[in-house]
């Protein structure tokens, strides 16, 4: 049954709090709904359906993974073929696209960044702790992942604010503004083309861009489109996702003194608490493109249709999680899909978990007590990545 509910993923109320809408759809006769808005898409809401879509990668392809179609002209021009591998890759190329970048994200590799992260977080807190208030999203969460990603790529950390602006232009504000999206995508690509050319002229060591340039695939250098694409992915997938998760977790803690006390009294809770924040406030929704006409759970999906993998909805499904709307810091069974599932499960999850842990622990050590200045003044971004963008707290 095709039911047009005309949901709007950029609707203010939906972005601010999508969970009541997810619940209504999930518990209805038709837990997968369709909307013609923003280029048209299907929105499943049940855990089992979303995991099945993630695993059926031959039917639900990654030709496009953004929740709205690309702006006109994006696929043309010299960089029209640049995507964001491996997240935008399908088999068989997906295998080497992913294999090549996994070593930099292994638990052992990301651990080498931990002390630097901790020092950076402490430096941020030094900058505002005496003021008695700060924007937990803009002054803290937003600044942490971009610093790590810049160091991994070997690009200037002083450009962090610029990178953040580009990512928001390409993936946040740009999703409802095609011209902005196109322009910022090009800025990102042109920046990395410059970085690549610089390394070709002046070889360096120990950064990811250099690793990608010396990478050999069947004896040949990796295609330039792949190298630019991975750099693009590092920015667009590595920055606002994790910053949104850190921001949502701090927003939650600001409003829940009992959870702050729990973490203070029992630091052993941190590992399950991190997973629970990821479950309850999963930032990311990815899209898939249907390969051929199929009927999925009674829905007539056509080749080329867009399907949203609403991981935030899956993570609140009562069929999978007891008391799904409660944040339970010691939740024992937590098969959340904040990082997706199947062959495209987030390649950077070890890094994201480490950033989340270091950012939250450092904040809680330095600022154990804090609260929202005005809960109604918190602003949220949504669509592809949901998280707070302004979140003033007092301490």
């Amino acid at each position, binding site marked *: 049954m095709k039911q047009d509910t005309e949901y709007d993923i950029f609707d203010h109320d939906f972005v601010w709090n999508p969970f009541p809408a997810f619940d209504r759809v999930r518990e209805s006769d038709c837990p997968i709904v369709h909307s013609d808005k923003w280029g048209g898409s299907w929105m499943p809401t049940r855990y089992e359906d979303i995991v099945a879509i993630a695993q059926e990668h031959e039917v639900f392809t990654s030709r496009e993974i953004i929740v709205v179609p690309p702006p006109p002209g994006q696929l043309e021009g010299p960089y029209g073929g640049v995507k964001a591998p491996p997240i935008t890759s399908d088999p068989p190329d997906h295998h080497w696209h992913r294999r090549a970048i996994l070593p930099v*994200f*292994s638990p052992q590799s990301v651990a080498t960044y931990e002390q630097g992260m901790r020092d950076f977080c402490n430096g941020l807190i030094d900058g505002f702790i005496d003021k008695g208030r700060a924007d937990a999203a803009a002054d803290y969460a937003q600044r942490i992942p971009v610093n790590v990603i810049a160091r991994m790529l070997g690009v200037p950390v002083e450009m962090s604010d610029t990178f953040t602006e580009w990512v928001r232009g390409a993936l946040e504000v740009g999703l409802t503004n095609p011209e902005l999206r196109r322009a910022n995508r090009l800025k990102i690509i042109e920046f990395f083309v410059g970085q690549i050319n610089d390394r070709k002229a002046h070889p360096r060591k120990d950064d990811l861009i250099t690793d990608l340039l010396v990478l050999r695939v069947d004896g040949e250098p990796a295609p330039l489109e792949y190298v630019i694409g991975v750099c693009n992915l590092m920015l667009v997938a590595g920055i606002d996702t994790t910053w949104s998760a850190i921001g949502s977790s701090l927003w939650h803690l600001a409003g829940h003194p009992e959870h702050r006390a729990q973490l203070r009294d029992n630091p052993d809770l941190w590992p399950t608490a991190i997973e629970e924040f990821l479950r309850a406030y999963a930032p990311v929704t990815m899209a898939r493109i249907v390969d051929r006409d199929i009927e999925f759970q009674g829905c007539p999906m056509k080749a080329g249709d867009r399907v949203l993998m609403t991981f935030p909805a899956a993570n609140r499904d009562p069929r999978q999680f007891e008391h799904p709307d409660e944040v339970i810091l010691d939740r024992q069974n937590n*098969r959340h899909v904040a990082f997706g*599932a*199947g062959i495209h499960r987030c390649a950077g999850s070890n890094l994201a978990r480490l950033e989340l842990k270091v950012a939250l622990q450092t904040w809680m050590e330095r600022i154990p007590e804090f609260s929202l200045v005005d809960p109604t003044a918190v602003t949220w971004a949504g669509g592809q990545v949901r998280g707070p963008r302004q979140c003033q707290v007092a301490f």
Partner: protein
Amino acid sequence: MCAIAAPEIFGSDDIGNATILIEGDIPADLEAKARRAEGNCPERAIEIVA
């Protein structure tokens, strides 16, 4: 995830794929951790038999 829940049982190789660190049956004192690894694997790749 399993390497976080039960680091005595699961490790990870150079590309972050899970590896099993012990041979044979899981010692009784690690059973609870093994069950946590099972209950938290998003891919349902872990099954404790008997």
